C-alpha cells in the first residue's frame, strides 16, 4: 500500500514579527526546499503567526549529545559572578 517517497524531513522556524528571532515551530515532510517552504506556510502560518519562515533539513542539524548534557552545560554552575545580581555592595548607588 505504501508507495512512498521517503521525502526528507524539514524543521520549520517562524519569525513572528520583525525584530524577533526565528523560533522552531515544528516539522514536515516535503520533496524539496521549495515545497517545504510552501507547506510550512500552509501548515504553520494560517493565522498571522509570522512574517518570515526558515526550513532546514533535519539531517543538517547537528545537536549536542543528550548523554553529555551534564558535562556539556555544567560550567555556569557556581559562576554567580556572571550575573549583575551578584554585586550587592553597589546596591542603591544611582544610575549604576
Amino acid at each position, binding site marked *: 500500500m*505504501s508507495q512512498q517517497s521517503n521525502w526528507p524531513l524539514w524543521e520549520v522556524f517562524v519569525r513572528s514579527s520583525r525584530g524577533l528571532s526565528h523560533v522552531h515551530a*515544528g516539522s514536515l515532510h516535503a520533496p524539496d526546499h521549495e515545497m517545504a517552504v510552501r507547506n510550512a506556510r500552509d*501548515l504553520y502560518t494560517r493565522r498571522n503567526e509570522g512574517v518570515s519562515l526558515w526550513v532546514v533539513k533535519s539531517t543538517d542539524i547537528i545537536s549536542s549529545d543528550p548523554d553529555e548534557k551534564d558535562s556539556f552545560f555544567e560550567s555556569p554552575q557556581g559562576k554567580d559572578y556572571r550575573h549583575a545580581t551578584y554585586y550587592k555592595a553597589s546596591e542603591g548607588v544611582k544610575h549604576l
Partner: protein
Amino acid sequence: MAERTPQEPGLSAVPSYEEEQSQARFDVLIDQDSRVEPRDWMPEPYRKTLTRQVSQHAHSEIIGMQPEANWITRAPSLKRKSILMAKVQDEAGHGLYLYSAAETLGTSRDELNDQLLTGRAKYSSIFNYPARSWADMGAIGWLVDGAAIANQVPLCRASYGPYGRAMVRICKEESFHQRQGFEILLALSRGTDAQKKMAQDAINRFYEPSLMMFGPPDDQSPNSQQSMAWKIKRFSNDELRQRFVGMIAEQVKVLGMSLPDPELHYDEDKKQWIHKDLNWDEFMAVIKGNGPVNSQRLERRREAHREGAWVREAASAYAAKQVQSEVA
C-alpha cells in the same frame, strides 16, 4: 526538534546497570514534572503507549475531516462554506502536527499511514457516525470538538515534549471549531420549527457518542492508571467526562434545546452534573469496526490516498529534476 533516533531496546530481559541508571533518570524527569524529549532514554512501554496514543490522535484528525468535508458544498452560505473549509484545513494540520510528534518516537510516517489504511490502527469512535444534516455541523462543532478540547487541554502538559507542544498549537485552533458549531446551532434554534427540530435531532444523536469520546469508565480502562503515572494523562476518563457534561448541561440552556438524558441532574452534595449510564456495548462495537460508517470512512481515506498518488509522484519527479539541473 524532531529527532528520528530511537534508542535500541535492551536485548536482555534483565536490566543492565546502564538501563537502571537510565530508568532512574527518566523517573526523576517524570517526578519533577519535567519533559521527556525525543533523544532521552525512555522505557519501551512508555514509547509504545505514546506512539499508539499520538498516532491514534493523528488518525482521528485525518478521518475527522470527512463528515465535514461532505457538507462543504451544501453549506447554507458562502461564509459558512469558508468557515467549514478553514476547519477541515485545520484538522489536516492537526493530523500533521501529531504525525510529526509520533515520528519523533521512531515510527516513520509511511508506517503510520499504512497502519491507518490497512485498519491496523484505531481512531476516535465518534467519526464512525454519519453527519446527516446541516445541523450536524453544529452538533459536531459544539459537542465533538467540545469534548476534544476538554480532553486536549490537559494533554498540553503531557510529559512527552513534542506531544505537549503539538497539543498547545492544536488547542489554540480548536476553540474556533467549538464556537462556530455552537453558533450554527444557535442560528437554527432561532429559526423555523423545522430548523429547531433539525438542531434538536442533531444534539440527540451526538450527545451520547460525544460523552463516550473520553473512553471507557475508569474501572474498565486498563491503561489509564499507567498513563497517569507517566503523566501523559492528567485526569481520568470519568473526571473529564464529568467536567464536560457539566459544561454542556449549562450551555444547552442558551440554545433553548435539551440533552437527551432523562437522568441528567445536578447533584447538590457532589456539586456536579450526573448523567445516565452510557451504552458501552455500542462503544465497543464501534471501536471494533462495526459502527454505522466505519467501512465508508476507511474506504474514502484509501481512495483519497490513491487519488493523491500522482501529486506525490509529480512533486518527487519535479524535486529530482531540480537536483539534476543543479548538477548539470
